């Protein structure tokens, strides 16, 4: 399929996540997009690195489940179609501005790149964000950033049929979500 906005939105609307890969639209799960290293559509390489490192800090395994690809794909979609929990949280769309500002603040608070911190320092910084103890912090409120990204990480790790399996919970769908989630 040739890539254009209409096709892209159509793919998004039918119930699978759409990614732009090499000029085509591909539907895939975020975990598959991560494994295949699909390119980001909205976020930069630096933002992706910070997001994945932060995701793995607050919920180990979130990066591999495609946290960055999930968020990036939704930032590329119409905000009314967004699957991100941020749409519930009284943040005006478009939501890319929030994520970019949050990730820039995270890197700055880390003194360069969050991804370059040790595991212990990453966790310590995340805990200080939750307590509102990071100063200076130049971005959306740190505790709110932690709240949103934590919920995003929970979505990709535990909000899917595979996630329910991890908790030994029956999924019991009336209408199953798309397999290429």
């Amino acid at each position: 399929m040739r890539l254009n906005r209409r096709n892209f939105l159509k793919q998004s609307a039918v119930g699978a996540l759409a990614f732009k890969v090499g000029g085509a639209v591909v539907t895939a799960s975020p975990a598959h997009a991560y494994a295949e290293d699909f390119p980001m559509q909205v976020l930069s390489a630096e933002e992706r690195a910070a997001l994945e490192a932060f995701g793995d800090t607050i919920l180990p395994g979130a990066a591999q489940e495609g946290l960055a690809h999930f968020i990036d794909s939704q930032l590329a979609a119409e905000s009314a179609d967004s699957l991100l929990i941020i749409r519930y949280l009284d943040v005006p769309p478009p939501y890319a501005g929030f994520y970019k500002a949050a990730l820039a603040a995270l890197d700055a608070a880390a003194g360069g790149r969050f991804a370059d911190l040790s595991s212990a320092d990453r966790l310590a910084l995340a805990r200080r964000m939750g307590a509102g103890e990071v100063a200076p912090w130049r971005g959306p409120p740190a505790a709110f950033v932690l709240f949103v990204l934590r919920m995003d990480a929970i979505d990709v790790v535990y909000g899917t049929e595979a996630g329910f399996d991890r908790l030994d919970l029956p999924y019991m769908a009336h209408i199953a979500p798309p397999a290429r989630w």
Partner: protein
Amino acid sequence: MNEAVDVVIVGAGAAGSYFAAKLQGAGKQVVVLEAGPERGLEDLVSSSIWARRLKWGGPPVDSQGVPIGHNVNFGWGLGGAALHHYATWPRFAEETFHIRERYGVGLDWPIAYDDLRAHYDAIQREVGIAGDAEDEPSRPPGEPYPLPPLPVFAQGERLKAGFDAIGVDVGALPAAILTRAYNGRDACIYDGWCESGCPIGALANPLVLHIPEAKRLGAEFRTECAATGVLTDETGQARGVRYVDAAGEVREQHADVVILAASCVQNPRLLLASAGAKHPDGLANSSGLAGANFMVDGLAAVYGLFDDPMENVFGVNAGQLFHRAAYEDGRARAPGAYQWQLAPAIKPNDLAGIAGARPDLIGPDLHDFMRRAAHGLAVAAGFASTLPDAQNRVELSSETDSTGTPLARVVYRNAPEAEALWAHIAAEGVAAANAAGAREAWHGRPAPVHISGGTVMGDDPARSVTDGYGRTHDVSNLVLAGAGLFPYTGGSSPTFTLYALAHRTAEHMIEHWSEYAA
């Protein structure tokens, strides 16, 4: 130009679709304008993630002060918020209609419970409600429920023991969820996906109730058509609605009667955005109260972690058991009326999910909690009532949407009494969870739910926006519908009363059509 019709309705949620079906059925030609997209049952994917598309996706609402959770509480597209509501359907308590007369606070309704009783009964028969009238705490008089109550799983049994132990009487939860097949719809299978929308139609939603009925009778639903204002004539009467269609074209739909059923926020936004020579401060706003008395109940989520399985993935999101403390009862214990819903079905993610119970946990601790709580978490949801306050209101923002219409701004603060009531409820719930034998018990932070008011009804045109039928005091052919009309709720879930009121008004409109269409 569209051909003029009898009725144009803005909003295809619970109230709008109900009026469409009943007025079209009475021989009136109805057009419904819905800002959001077309939806079908096939869109109701069982997933907390995919369900986010059902929530508000329209023009942003500027929230000042205490957040009201606008986007998560309101719907978008055919079915509106009723598509993802939990279907807890209690009748309002008798005292709720007379709170000022009896206790000197808030605002009185212009009608009494007895004025609505027959309409509750009629809606209950049509839609189907599961419950036990004898076992439901504080249920006002009325017909028994047509369906047996919801089943109680381990989570409900355990929490009931705790509430019993602290002297809080809990009983059957009234729910517009079918426990047996009813009127051609299937029974619930208790898989807990209510908030994602119920594609089998066991949970009452407009896609299985009044939208198909209205369409079958000939009503027309136009989706992706955003109303931008109510049109008025030289006398100040409404003559239709201006809207922007899916192609971005500005259009007009003329009608003899205009019904705004576009939510507690969008209804006042449209009134205020419809200012004209005859009504410079906004339509139906001679009282200055269009947008005022906006109310938000405070949710207190209480959690108990148990060692044995709670079967918490089963059931319905509304819960299994119910308690209501009347204002009078509550005054002895707390400053206000409130409601408990025990043992909702929960999922791992989303705001009301397992992970949300302990937002402080991150890293390996979070995985550990998820594994324990997935089977051992029990939840009780308390709802603190709020009194109307004219300072809590919907206004117009200086910013506009893509159609040039000013955005809505909501200014909201909690009264000290509401915060004290919330604290009382949270403490009561934790005490009950501990009494039930929880290994740990705690409560979350206040969350905004049950939005109502903003265009309240009343007898006095100087102190209210509409009469007891929802007809605006200022414009006799302009009717408002939905929970925005409520002067007070007592902390009770609003949707059943929204329907009962719509039933009463639709009947009145049909019997007295010339008064409305004059």
